[in-house]
Structures are given as structure tokens and as C-alpha cells.
């Protein structure tokens, strides 16, 4: 299990390659499902210059640790990885990596998505965008986690 909140740039594929090499036992692992969230250059019709990701230092990593532990207990999976960026970000910077390893694909897919929804709705992070015109604004809500017919 790896849970990390960091102000340094994250490289999702490197993190996964290293973690897997050191910690994933091939014996019973047949599937990995991964989600990577990346900062976009456009949001709600505006060009975004940078983003500040605020968190609650005493609580955020602790919350994610408990979420990862609960997830391990609740589901038939082999391992969980959560790495989340904080601080100053620029377009194209990865924000979060979540990975689930399990014996079969059904668990990996279901749990990776479920964990992301819990992270998005409960983990104490807040995004503030700086627009290209110099204005700042707080992101007020998340996009939908599931596809909505419009």
C-alpha cells in the first residue's frame, strides 16, 4: 500500500513501474486498473494559467490512508496506490494517480472507480485556478463521476 501527498511533480508511469517492481507479487495478481487525473489547460471555457491545490496537512494524508485501508478490507484486491499532488500546478501536470491490483479485472475496475469517487467527494483538497487574464477563482464543484445523458 502506498499513500502519498506531495508538493513535488509526479510521474505516474514511473511511480507505477517502480511500485510494481518492488511490491506487487505476481502469484495472484492478474489485473491492474489505474486512473490518472491531469490539469487541463481549459476549464469552463477559460484558459487556465496555473492552479493552486490547497489541502489540510494534518488531515489529508491521514484521510487517504484510512480510505486505502478500508478499501483493502472491503474488497478482494491485492494492493492500492494513491499519490496526490498539492501546491502550484501548471497545465499538463498530473494531479492524482490511483491504482488497484487484484486477481481479476472486475475488482480492479470497480474498486479503482469507487476509490476515485470517494477521493473526489471526501478528500480535503481544494483547487484554485489562475486564469490567463490574471483572475483567480475557486473550483466550486466536481464534474460528474458517471456519464450523464444530456
Amino acid at each position, binding site marked *: 500500500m502506498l499513500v502519498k501527498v506531495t508538493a513535488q511533480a509526479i510521474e505516474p508511469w514511473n511511480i507505477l513501474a517502480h511500485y510494481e517492481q518492488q511490491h506487487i507479487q505476481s502469484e495472484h495478481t492478474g489485473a491492474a486498473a489505474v486512473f490518472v*487525473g491531469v490539469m487541463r489547460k481549459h476549464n469552463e471555457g477559460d484558459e487556465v494559467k496555473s492552479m493552486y*491545490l*490547497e*489541502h*489540510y496537512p*494534518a*488531515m489529508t494524508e*491521514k*484521510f487517504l490512508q484510512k480510505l486505502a485501508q478500508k478499501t483493502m478490507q472491503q474488497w478482494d484486491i491485492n494492493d492500492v496506490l494513491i499519490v*496526490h499532488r498539492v501546491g502550484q500546478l501548471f497545465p499538463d501536470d498530473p*494531479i*492524482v494517480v490511483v491504482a488497484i491490483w487484484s486477481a481479476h479485472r472486475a475488482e480492479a475496475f470497480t474498486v479503482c472507480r469507487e476509490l*476515485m469517487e470517494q*477521493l*473526489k*467527494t*471526501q*478528500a*480535503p*483538497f*481544494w*483547487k*484554485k485556478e489562475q486564469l490567463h487574464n490574471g483572475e483567480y477563482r*475557486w*473550483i*466550486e*464543484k*466536481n464534474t460528474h463521476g458517471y456519464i450523464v445523458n444530456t
Partner: protein
Amino acid sequence: MRISIKFFASLREQLKMEDMDISVESVTTVHDLWQHVVKKEIPDNIMVAINQEYASMQSLVQDGDEIAFFPPVTGG
């Protein structure tokens, strides 16, 4: 009793309130504490944590607690 209070993100900016350590006597719930300190109605979507664990507005406040108020989270 002594209480430590924290505000995060847009809520901190809207209220123009810094983190504070205060002494209170008559306060029993998180809701009371908010009223005592902020002196406005509490917005519906505000989340609260006591000692870094999620709580509700009806949760009881105890001596030494760290109470954090924040807007809906937007990580990930």
C-alpha cells in the same frame, strides 16, 4: 475550554477569518461554535472535521479539539 479553529479555501477568503485558538464556555456543538465565532448562518454545503475526522454540525465540541470548516472538496 480551549478550541482551535481552522477555515480552508474559499470559506477562509469569504469569511476573511484566520485560523484561531479561542476560549469558549457556553458552546456545546459545532453549530454553536460556528454561531459564536462567525455570527452568520452556516451555509448548507460546509463540511466540518473534529480532530481531522469528519463530523456533523451537531457533534459535541470538547476541550482541546481542533475544529476545521471547509467548502466542498475538489481534489483528484
